């Protein structure tokens, strides 16, 4: 249900307007001047405000200024006693949405109020969209941050895993060197002896294969070197 606030010091005008609008299905609040208007505006959100321009104390323009300064977004329809263009344009300049002149014609009143309420609906919708947009943006940023963190730790984990494997491979390769040197040494000594062809052929094959392993170990050491090796 759309909320309308009527601000008028004349109880007759208030009652008439309230009755008309209530019949159309609006929830109506009333105020006789600035103080009551202020209380009502603090209490709930209105979709349109009907505001008499001539009021004792703070007049309609003063209340309009208060409404605008307080960032209340309900469109304000000024009620002017005479159809003076000057008064109407003055209120529009202060941020009024529209105005109705006394005596107020019912159709005109309902038409202006309906348009004002529609406008408030658009304002609310726009605000809602902006709010959602900001939330979406924040959510997106949060997700990007989260994924970046995930990627970062995955990358670090991979890096650690990789270094661990490289160190293991390097250490293992080193461990091959002494046994290979010993095998090579023994082979060299054995092959210095006078050997039957068959035995020599077999030892040569062993020797060839030891060389192949030595080459693999050298390659592994080079590949896993920590840079700047002599």
């Amino acid at each position, binding site marked *: 249900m759309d909320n309308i606030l009527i601000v008028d010091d004349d109880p007759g005008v208030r009652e008439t307007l309230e009755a008309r609008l209530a019949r159309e299905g609006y929830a109506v609040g009333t105020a006789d001047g600035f103080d009551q208007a202020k209380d009502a505006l603090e209490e709930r959100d209105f979709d349109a405000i009907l505001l008499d321009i001539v009021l004792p104390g703070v007049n309609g323009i003063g209340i309009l200024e208060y409404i605008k300064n307080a960032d209340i977004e309900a469109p304000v329809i000024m009620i002017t006693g005479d159809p003076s263009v000057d008064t109407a344009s003055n209120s529009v300049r202060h941020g009024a949405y529209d105005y109705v002149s006394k005596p107020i014609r019912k159709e005109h009143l309902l038409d202006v109020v309906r348009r004002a309420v529609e406008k408030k609906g658009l304002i609310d919708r726009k605000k809602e969209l902006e709010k959602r947009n900001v939330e979406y943006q924040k959510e997106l940023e949060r997700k990007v941050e989260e994924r970046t963190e995930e990627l970062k730790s995955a990358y670090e984990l991979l890096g650690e895993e990789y270094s661990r494997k490289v160190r293991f491979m390097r250490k293992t390769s*080193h461990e091959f*060197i*002494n046994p*290979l*040197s*010993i095998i*090579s*040494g*023994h082979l*060299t*000594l054995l092959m210095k002896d006078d050997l039957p062809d068959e035995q020599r052929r077999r030892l040569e094959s062993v020797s060839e294969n030891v060389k192949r392993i*030595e080459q693999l*170990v*050298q390659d592994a*050491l080079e590949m896993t*070197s*920590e840079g*700047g*090796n*002599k």
Partner: protein
Amino acid sequence: MTYHILVVDDEPDICELLGIFLSMNDGIEVHTAENGKIAVEMYLNLAGSGSRPDIVLMDIRMPVMDGIEATREILEHDPDANVYMVTAYNEPNLVQDAMDAGAKDVINKTAGFPEISEMVMGVLGA
């Protein structure tokens, strides 16, 4: 004349094989030690008995006392000692430590015993 060579390695096979290949050359007497501590004692004993090692072939990684520390101690007693590191480890910082300790050079263990033996003979000028 006879050249004395001290071979230091915790692998008995390495000591034995290096000894055999070096001994194939004339005038070479090989002594072996299985760790740095024994090497230092042996160096001092040999030097004391007039058989100061002309070259020490020193492994780096050994139990009890490693080759770097042993080199440092030998050099402390004999600043003219010729210590060569024989190692499979080609990490630059290990090489640097060996040189800082006073080693003359680093010989790559993967070169093979005949080649190492040849290198040593070259250094001795024999």
